[in-house]
């Protein structure tokens, strides 16, 4: 722990927190690997991976007020859900589409996350819509402060939203960031830039190198970060979060990552990228990088890592065993929850 003198926020992270970051990434990875296995075994019908994105997702979440600030994630954010507080069981409920699933009780495909208690807004599939919701939530934060509405001490103070670089081509991305600029909103828009939108390469998606080049056009801040480096992501998002908390507006972050797996279990990526490319990228594994960083810092031993790994693996095992045995939703559950009952006052949040 010799880096404390450096002027980067991650240098002040406690060993416990560093371990928590690493553990979230590792649990995500082990769950993710298991899900592919379950898919191959025909036990689940769909999965989409965070593999390669873990540092970006976890590093970001640790830099905000976790579980309090609003989060509008996208389908690839399973490591983010873990960083926010989910365990393997919650993820398992989703992939098995069990009635107890927090996200949707089996209504939505896996990866369409939701957890109101953690401030995580229900994810749909049409891309980029969540960026507008996040702008609206950030708007609400500012509105409440301005109007002096009663807000608990631990109220959300920013909204974090994520999307893939391909999804930035949507009009909604533009409209949301424009609102963020006009209203100086406490918003962080984190682009998990893996260079592909399913098969479509970055170059077919935009004529610029960094998505953050668009920030200036909205009068907001922009940043680029190595999304395979959890602590670098932490530092960048931390800075963006301070900006948001201090009323200095929104930040658009381009986090360079790589998707180690096909787009989803429905995809076959051989038609559009070479095995060599994938192998080369896999060498830059964000988990192994953080492991090494922590070892170099003296904050972790190889044995610690093995222990942590064994522990998360058994969490995944236990979750699978428990959830697999659960009953499926009742068919008629399809009819529930079309309209919220009651009157608005009862819903005060």
């Amino acid at each position, binding site marked *: 722990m010799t880096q404390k003198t450096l002027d980067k926020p991650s240098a002040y992270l406690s060993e416990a927190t560093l371990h928590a970051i690493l553990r979230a990434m590792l649990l995500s990875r082990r769950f993710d690997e298991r899900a592919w296995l379950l898919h191959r075994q025909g036990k689940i019908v769909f999965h989409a991976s965070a593999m390669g994105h873990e540092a970006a997702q976890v590093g970001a979440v640790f830099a905000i007020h976790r579980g309090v600030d609003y989060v509008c994630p996208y389908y690839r954010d399973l490591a983010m859900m873990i960083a926010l507080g989910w365990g393997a069981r919650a993820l398992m409920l989703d992939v098995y589409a069990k009635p107890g699933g927090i996200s949707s009780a089996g209504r939505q495909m896996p990866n369409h996350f939701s957890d109101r208690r953690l401030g995580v807004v229900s994810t749909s599939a049409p891309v980029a819509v969540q960026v507008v919701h996040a702008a609206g939530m950030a708007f609400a934060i500012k509105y409440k402060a301005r109007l002096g509405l009663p807000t608990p001490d631990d109220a959300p103070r920013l909204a974090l939203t994520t999307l893939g670089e391909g999804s930035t081509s949507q009009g909604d991305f533009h409209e949301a960031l424009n609102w963020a600029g*006009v209203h100086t909103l406490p918003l962080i828009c984190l682009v998990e830039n893996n260079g592909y939108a399913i098969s479509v390469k970055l170059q077919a998606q935009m004529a610029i190198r960094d998505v953050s080049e668009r920030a200036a056009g909205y009068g907001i801040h922009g940043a680029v970060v190595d999304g395979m480096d959890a602590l670098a992501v932490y530092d960048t998002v931390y800075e963006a979060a301070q900006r948001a908390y201090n009323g200095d507006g929104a930040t658009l972050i381009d986090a360079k990552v790589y998707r180690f797996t096909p787009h989803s279990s429905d995809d076959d990526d051989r038609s559009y990228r070479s095995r060599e490319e994938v192998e080369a990228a896999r060498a830059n594994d964000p988990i192994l990088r953080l492991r090494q960083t922590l070892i170099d810092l003296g904050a972790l031993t190889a044995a610690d890592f093995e222990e942590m790994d064994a522990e998360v693996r058994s969490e995944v095992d236990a979750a699978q065993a428990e959830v697999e045995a659960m009953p499926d939703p009742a068919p008629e559950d399809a009819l529930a929850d079309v309209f919220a009952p009651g009157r608005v006052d009862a819903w005060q949040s």
Partner: protein
Amino acid sequence: MAVMTLIEGLRQGMDEALAADPRVFIIGEDVGARGGVFRATQGLFDKYGGDRVIDSPLAESSIVGVGIGAALAGLLPICEIQFADFIYPAFNQIVNEAARMYYRSAGDWHVPLVIRVPYGGGVGGGLYHSQSVESLFAHQPGLKVVVPSTPADAKGLIKAALYDPNPVIIFEPKKGYRGIKGEVPEGEIVTSIGAARVARMGGDVSVFAYGMMAYYAEQAAEMVAVEGIDAEIIDLRTLAPVDRESILASVRKTGKALIVYEDNLTLGYGAEVAALIADDGFEFLDAPVRRLAAPDVPATPFSHPMQDFFMINPDKIAAAIRELAAY
């Protein structure tokens, strides 16, 4: 009771809501100092300030999407879409997001959003300032869709929409904004969403309509009354959820159903009413289920002779009632 116009009823409803609850705010194009292009929000900016009555960027998807986010965060937004014709850029946010949020989160998140949308023709607005788009939204479970045709319902429905924990679209018949006048009770009134209004009792023919067409249908009923035809006029008022019972009760009584709407005939809202009657009301029917609607051309033409040809009016409704009565 005060007599006021339909748009005054709306404005009073919003005014009272803004006064009563700081969570209520308005966003839309020109809703601020300009008071809206139809003046629906006139005076509210001066009264409540730019923090509550907010001019948005010219981008409907974000007007609704920001409204959704704010609603999720506990506020009660009223989003104004300047004309129904311009609601399509927000279609994805309304249909895929607002309408499905409660269902997809299994009741965890809800979206108490109100969307106000001036709609309808006969105002010289041409293809893009005259459209009736309500059937597209009444088709979406998870959305409530209401249409006032009296000033009291204008106020009562906007209140009801604000109290509803679900997304509610109010389609406002803009041709009636100033032309439709009526009594509005003082203070709090809430029109219950899901209940039609019997605008006129009658025994010969049931006419189902809403918005401007309900207003015209009442006029048409008076025209044919002097000829001895006793039409019952049902102002459907809430299109989603629809009041099946009131519809079927009326058809049971008259045996004849005419549905009037100003949208294009094919798959306009009246198609559902006709289909519903043709199934559950079949045994009551003494005549074909008739629809009177705009022809299937892309939208209302601008030039007056063409517009008048396209639009439904009291004379056309009276003629359709007569024809059905004579069946």
